């Protein structure tokens, strides 16, 4: 198996426990800080895919039934063969086909903003995609088969034990840090977040008050980076009551005496001033973490 790029490829060695970001250094030496796909998102993606599969099967069934009726039941055999093959290929190759696509994600994963990557950071090969999806038999269909089987007495106990045993594979992702399913383990893959983002407008542009309202040195030294990012989020969400509450907190904190302007305008101006101050200090080698960071 070619593992091109395994040596010069990125290393995945994130440390902090409970943290979902993983160090992922590209050959150019930049850490992409990937975030792993969490159990809930992965389960949601899977449910979406199953729904799509079931709907597709129903559509195929209806269409073939319609064709049969139109042809007055002459092609029963042909229709049965086509139906069987389509059902088989859908069940076995739906996931594989989508994950071999450049985006390496099924429709469910795309909706949830996830994608499959090779754990070493190298190429995601067709073999790996095949392995991770063939293992679904073990993780999904085995527990299902125990779930639908029935029996009395000893049989019932055997089925219960089987269900518990196969449940280990189903819930495997919950027991490891990188949320690997058995298929990921065997294929050497993992699922990470790779959402498409739009470039948001720069909040320091475009406001009439930016650069007009002036703040004193002490006023822009009231906060650190953490507060700046909270402020950014508040401004981007632009929720009126929150804006007012935050603006009042900041006015009180810095003892604002200037002209009365609207909350959003005031916050935008303060954001620009604070960011300017913090970025300047960062250029001189000090990144002020939060408002308690004195130095």
């Amino acid at each position, binding site marked *: 198996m070619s593992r091109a790029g395994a040596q010069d490829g990125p290393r995945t060695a994130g440390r902090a426990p409970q943290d979902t970001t993983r160090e992922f250094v590209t050959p150019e030496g930049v850490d992409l800080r990937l975030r792993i796909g969490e159990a809930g998102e992965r389960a949601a993606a899977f449910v979406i895919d199953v729904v799509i599969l079931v709907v597709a099967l129903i559509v195929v069934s209806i269409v073939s039934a319609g064709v049969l009726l139109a042809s007055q039941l002459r092609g029963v055999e042909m229709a049965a063969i086509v139906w069987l093959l389509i059902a088989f290929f859908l069940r076995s190759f739906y996931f594989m086909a989508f994950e071999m696509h450049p985006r390496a994600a099924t429709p469910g994963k795309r909706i949830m903003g996830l994608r499959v990557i090779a754990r070493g950071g190298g190429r995601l090969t*067709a073999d790996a995609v095949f392995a991770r999806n063939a293992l679904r038999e073990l993780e999904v269909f085995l527990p299902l088969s125990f779930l639908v089987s029935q029996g009395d007495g000893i049989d019932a106990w055997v089925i219960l034990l089987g269900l518990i045993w196969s449940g280990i594979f189903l819930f495997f992702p919950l027991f490891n840090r990188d949320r690997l399913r058995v298929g990921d383990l065997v294929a050497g893959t993992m699922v990470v977040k790779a959402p498409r983002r739009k470039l948001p407008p720069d909040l320091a542009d475009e406001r009439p008050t930016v650069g007009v309202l002036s703040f004193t040195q002490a006023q822009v030294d009231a906060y650190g980076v953490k507060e700046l990012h909270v402020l950014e989020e508040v401004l981007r969400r632009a929720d009126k009551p929150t804006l007012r509450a935050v603006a009042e907190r900041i006015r009180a904190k810095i003892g604002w005496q200037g002209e009365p302007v609207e909350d959003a305008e005031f916050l935008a101006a303060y954001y620009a001033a604070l960011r300017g101050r913090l970025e300047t200090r960062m250029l001189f080698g000090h990144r002020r973490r939060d408002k308690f960071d004195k130095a």
Partner: protein
Amino acid sequence: MAELVLKSQRFRAEREADWRRLEALLAKAEGGSAARLSREELLELPVLYRSALSSLSVARSISLDQGLIDYLESLCTRAYFFVYGARSTLLARMGGFFTHDWPAAVKGLWRETLVSLAITLLGVVVAAALVAGDPDWFYAFVPSELAGGRDPSASAAFLRATLYDDHDGKSVFATFLFTHNAQVALFAFALGFALCLPTAGLMIHNGLMLGAFLALFASHGLGLEAGGWLMIHGATELFAIVLAGAAGFSIGWAVVFPGETSRMSAAAAAGRRAAVVMIGVVVMLFLAGLLEGIGRQAVRADALRWTIAAASLSLWLAYFYLPRKTP
């Protein structure tokens, strides 16, 4: 617009066009295949990717605009996987697959294949001996929907008829068997992860059914004929299932005895090698389905059936195990 007062604003203004260009190219490439990009665009993409990466490093050290940094991280991640995570479609995978990769992978699993074969044969022998001694054992090994009336209560004439006559819905049944067998093969492969034992169980179960069938026909003096009926496609099909079992064993074995590497990387290496075998197994099962659906209908003579069986088996053996030049 207010003039750009912050360094980070000027930084963004200077590079934004490049990022947008990269984003547009990626959207185009991800929408379909890389073939949708023109030659110039393909050459442009890695350059834009590297400049976006350097923008990301710079942004992290001079800008505190979280929205911008998030955007650059997602853009760089997408571009990274486009540039380095070379896509391999199933079609591209086919190049070199049949000439080299698949036979090499199968050959590499020869020990597991022998074990898998031995377990299947054990099942055959046990079932044949039991059914020969007491025909009622047949019902224990073969589910009635697969038997289709071919059980110890059937007459020799009926059994003979099942070997040579056409039935309605035969091709439907062949398709059903192909999908069923492919599912069983995938299952045998996947179960391997559960420390080999379930795969062994599945192989022995398969062997038991086979042995029970053969013993039933043999008890009516139809052993040779039934063998021909079965082996014309069975040589390919049973080989494929034995290989699927072997692929499963190799994964389970790597998990239990990882050797010098870590358990995780041993499992991953074994998994990818076994996956190569399995892709081929699905192809083999498809061929077996064709042989069963078409070949068995067309060929009625026992000798010819046996000849085809022997020929296909020796072809597979030669294809997998004969030494060949490494490219």
